């Protein structure tokens, strides 16, 4: 009898009397995946095939998705082929300088209309039977149209599906849903924090050539969540070896002190989040080297940024900022890597990354950004490896049935956020926090369960 009094803390095994029912995912089930009160998260959001299918429709079919930067396609006819979720799209600069986005699928028999990564085009011709489309995505030529098609065939009805396209300070986003809010409404109060990268100078930003793409075997949400909400891994152990190995010449490890002051922000609507240190440049110096650190904190450009942003704290003292715009647009202001996490099934993600710089930065600073982001955050970047190793290992562990049954802890900072200050407004908490992650998953759950923008909208 005495043994019965000792409550075991071990969570041992299953109750094997019943097989788990194949989940059909009612709204109630989905709502149960995140418990913000308790701070727990069901890991099946990273592994379940049915949830993944629903997510393509309910999240990627309705959210604003980052496609690239305006300077990827500066001239009329410039185009980029990319994705919105699993749907391939073409982004094209029009003759009147506006942008169009349409599904990269020929409505004849479904072939991919354009098969190259990007370039400059006068028109797009399907390589199967030669249906041809103009830059605006209108069907303009059908071989043997009069000889072979019936008299009521109407080319204007057979162009590809179009998406809405809007930009925020150089970043290009698209959305399939005609009822979705405008991009600006969707970004909500997160724009203020995006400006730390996009609006340091009236000249704006430009992209440093092209797009790096690589594949890692993990769910996109690990990456999106980390950029949204996880300074903890950077301030604890994940990147220690990377920092040690890449320390700039003459810099002592004691100079790369891990900062202790900083904030995390959760957008009031939309699942966007960010976090950053304030004050100590040691970690930034260890990641990006002296040239970039000086440019950001102590240069003519830094003074101009201070004026332009109206705050020395925001322009010069904010360090190593991480940020996600829900769902898959992530970037690191100051480090300036920008990426879209492209979902490829629950267990795989394609990362499409590029680097931006202030358009009026000196050439040597632009070149240093190119070198440093290649070294740190890119297919072969040292910090990218650290992050990817963690996400991929978690995904691998989640092959296990027991592993999928164990809810994760997402409690950090719970109930401790308050209103910020004049420099950092909005819902603000300590830099080591999971409040923004809870925001991201809350938005994911809302999009997965609320069919109408009337309830879902900001």
């Amino acid at each position, binding site marked *: 009898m005495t043994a019965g009094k000792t409550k075991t803390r071990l969570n041992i095994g299953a109750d094997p009397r019943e097989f788990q029912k194949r989940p059909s995912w009612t709204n109630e089930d989905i709502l149960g995946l995140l418990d913000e009160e308790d701070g727990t998260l069901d890991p099946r959001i990273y592994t379940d095939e049915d949830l993944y299918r629903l997510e393509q429709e309910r999240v990627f079919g309705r959210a604003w998705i980052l496609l690239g930067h305006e300077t990827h396609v500066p001239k009329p006819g410039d185009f980029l082929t990319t994705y919105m979720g699993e749907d391939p799209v073409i982004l094209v600069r029009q003759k009147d300088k506006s942008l169009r986005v349409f599904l990269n699928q020929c409505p004849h028999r479904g072939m991919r209309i354009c098969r190259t990564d990007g370039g400059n*085009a006068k028109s797009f*011709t399907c390589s199967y039977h*030669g249906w*041809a489309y103009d830059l605006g995505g209108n069907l303009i*030529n059908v071989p043997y149209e009069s000889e072979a098609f019936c008299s009521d065939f109407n080319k204007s009805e057979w162009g590809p599906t179009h998406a809405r396209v809007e930009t925020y300070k150089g970043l290009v986003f698209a959305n399939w849903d005609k009822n979705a809010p405008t991009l600006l409404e969707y970004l909500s109060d997160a724009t203020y924090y995006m400006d730390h990268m996009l609006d340091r100078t009236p000249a704006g930003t430009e992209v440093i050539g092209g797009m790096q793409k690589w594949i890692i075997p993990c769910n996109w949400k690990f990456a999106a969540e980390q950029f949204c909400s996880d300074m903890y891994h950077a301030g604890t152990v994940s990147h220690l070896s990377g920092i040690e190995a890449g320390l700039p010449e003459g810099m002592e490890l004691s100079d790369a002190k891990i900062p202790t002051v900083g904030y995390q922000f959760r957008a009031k609507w939309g699942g966007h989040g960010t976090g950053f240190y304030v004050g100590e440049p040691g970690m930034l110096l260890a990641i990006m080297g002296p040239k970039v650190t000086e440019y950001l904190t102590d240069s003519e450009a830094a003074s101009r940024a201070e004026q332009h942003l109206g705050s020395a704290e925001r322009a010069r003292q904010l360090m190593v900022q991480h940020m996600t715009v829900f769902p898959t647009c992530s970037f690191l202001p100051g480090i300036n890597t920008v990426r879209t996490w492209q979902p490829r099934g629950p267990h795989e993600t394609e990362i499409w990354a590029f680097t931006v710089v202030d358009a009026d930065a000196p050439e040597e600073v632009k070149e240093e950004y190119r070198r440093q982001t290649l070294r740190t955050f890119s297919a072969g970047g040292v910090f990218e490896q650290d992050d990817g190793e963690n996400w991929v290992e978690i995904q691998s562990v989640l092959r296990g049935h027991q592993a999928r049954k164990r809810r994760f802890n997402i409690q950090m900072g719970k109930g401790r956020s308050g209103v910020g200050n004049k420099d950092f407004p909005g819902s603000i908490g300590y830099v080591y926090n999971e409040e923004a992650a809870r925001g991201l998953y809350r938005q994911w759950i809302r999009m997965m369960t609320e069919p109408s923008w009337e309830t879902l909208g900001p």
Partner: protein
Amino acid sequence: MAFEKVCNLEDVSEGEALQIETFEEAIAVYNVGGQIFATQDRCTHGDWSLADGFLEDGVIECTLHWGKFCVRTGKVKAPPACDPLTIYPVEVRGGEIFVDYEAGKVGE
């Protein structure tokens, strides 16, 4: 024989083509290494401007279905095009390009 001015030489740089719309049917004027040629602008295969195409070694490639033509002779150089282009006599006088539209004839 009536040559009419269509544009200035400097309007068509080397390796480029220019669409001219002054006649009944549009024509394309090409600059091949400093030599000027003119053909009908509309591809004989699909309804598309050849001046929008790619000019390489005196051969114009239509961007719609990749048919090719010799701009000097009008001859077909790649399928799916089957019919040659109409070509027009050209004269260059003092930096200006003249074309005899009436004298156009179907190429080989």
